[in-house]
């Protein structure tokens, strides 16, 4: 009995740590219950004091869609069902912009805790993405309603949705990790990022139809935009009802996974130094 207890003791040896990226991955898996609690906290605390609560996750993109449709439908009259077009773009865009910003905020919030207790430092970032996924799924409800109203059929290609969401999550996680890793050392990044996001949105086919962006710089403006592939993928399976071409799918998957790996490696390398910044 005594012996059994001793073998269960955890040994930590600062000179015998494995590769930080790998240690972190193991840590996150061990702390998965914490990640669920953090997601729960984010969802509950966001809506607790508002009357309509979780309905805002659906009303928010609908409201934006309504404004955008009124403002731009005359300008971009070429696209069929412009409101469904905008809403599909907005859902992907909101996921990306909100989760990446949330990653930075939660790392900053967690930095107080990182200085007192050991936690896998990516856990707040991973949970930010988790919160985004829940919001994403909820915001599919208004999309469904709008598609039914405007006569956009839902086709079999929609079964690809989980895969698309997974790729989008990996991409956002990668960007979120990179931003968080550097914003601890340079807080200016958070401010700069809001401006970058605004430009990024107008250079992505969120509101502006793809054909118009394709005419800028011979189409390079969208070819070098990683989000273009993800928005196109999502629109293809939901809005157009088409299975994506293999090249589109592979581009999106390649970009997302590469971004995730880079983000993970950079963040875990930098995070050892977080506690040195008082």
């Amino acid at each position, binding site marked *: 009995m005594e012996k059994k207890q*001793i*073998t269960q*003791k*955890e*040994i*930590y*040896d*600062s*000179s015998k740590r494995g590769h930080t990226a790998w240690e972190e991955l193991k840590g996150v898996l*061990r*702390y998965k*219950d*914490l990640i*669920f*609690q*953090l997601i*729960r*906290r984010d969802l*509950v*605390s966001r809506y*607790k*004091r508002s009357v309509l609560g979780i309905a805002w996750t659906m009303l928010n993109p609908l409201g934006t869609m309504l404004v955008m449709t009124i403002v731009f439908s005359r300008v971009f009259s070429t696209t069929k069902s412009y409101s469904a077009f905008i809403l599909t773009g907005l859902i992907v865009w909101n996921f990306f912009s909100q989760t990446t910003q949330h990653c930075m905020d939660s790392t900053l919030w967690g930095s*107080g*805790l*990182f*200085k*007192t*207790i*050991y*936690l896998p430092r990516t856990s707040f970032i991973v949970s930010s993405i988790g919160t985004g996924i829940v919001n994403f799924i909820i915001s599919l409800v208004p999309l469904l309603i709008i598609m039914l109203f405007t006569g956009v059929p839902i086709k079999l290609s929609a079964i690809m949705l989980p895969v698309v969401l997974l790729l989008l999550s990996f991409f956002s996680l990668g960007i979120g990790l990179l931003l968080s890793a550097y914003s601890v050392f*340079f*807080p*200016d990044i958070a401010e700069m990022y809001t401006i970058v996001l605004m430009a990024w949105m107008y250079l992505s086919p969120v509101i502006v139809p793809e054909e118009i962006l394709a005419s800028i710089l011979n189409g390079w403006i969208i070819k070098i935009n990683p989000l273009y592939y993800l928005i196109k993928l999502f629109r293809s399976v939901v809005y157009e009802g088409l299975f994506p071409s293999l090249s589109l799918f592979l581009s999106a998957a390649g970009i997302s996974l590469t971004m995730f790996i880079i983000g993970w490696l950079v963040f875990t390398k930098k995070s*050892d130094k977080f*506690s*040195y*910044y*008082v």
Partner: protein
Amino acid sequence: MSKQKIINSNGNFDIILENVTVRYQLPGERVRTFKEYAIKFAQGKHKKRSFLALDHINLKIKAGEIFGIIGKNGAGKSTLLKVISRVLIPTEGRVVTCGRVYPLLQLGAGFHPELTGIENIFLNGTLLGHTRDEIEEKYQDIVEFSEIVDFINMPMRTYSSGMQARLGFAVASAWQPEILILDEVLSVGDVAFQQKCQNRMREFREKGTTTVLVSHSPELITSLCERALWIDKGEIVALGKSDKITQGYKTKMGV
């Protein structure tokens, strides 16, 4: 198997520090913006002025003992705790701990004001590395110990600071820790609750928990600890029996 081997080579020590050095960058010299960074880099001046918070500390803490650390503000006490609780990776040297390190969260850090007491118990418990099942198992104990049964379904923002501290302590001390880190947190709540806290500490000691206690108060160190360390400017001034150490400290401080 390999774990067993390490334990044997550790002998009877739960915490071992070998030549542990921590060098912080001085805040004034820290580069905060890209512009500064670019200028510094261009000038080739990005070399860092540093501050030694811990200077080649060698220390062994025995399994099951209550070990005190005393020193002035800024002497390196908190840095030492951070190194032990694996929050800070030392710049040089080696830290070995045997068993889960458990720092008591100061007054419920990590509590969320909008969540209820129940939700915060689960949040705080998982922050300490416990699983949902482990928390469910201890849930009743935690609520009873914290004495806030009536408020447990209310949002945390309705709690007084004493209630928050009590809940924080109740969650953190619900599990028998292997290594416990206490940073001046025993002064929580009213006298009756403090008594409960101290009883729980005593229980832990009887069951073999290794405790590291940091305090400004020589009296507390003498009454609770067998051995103590006096640290100043990142260096060990004295290490030994707690009454002798605190005596020396008091003489030096002119208390």
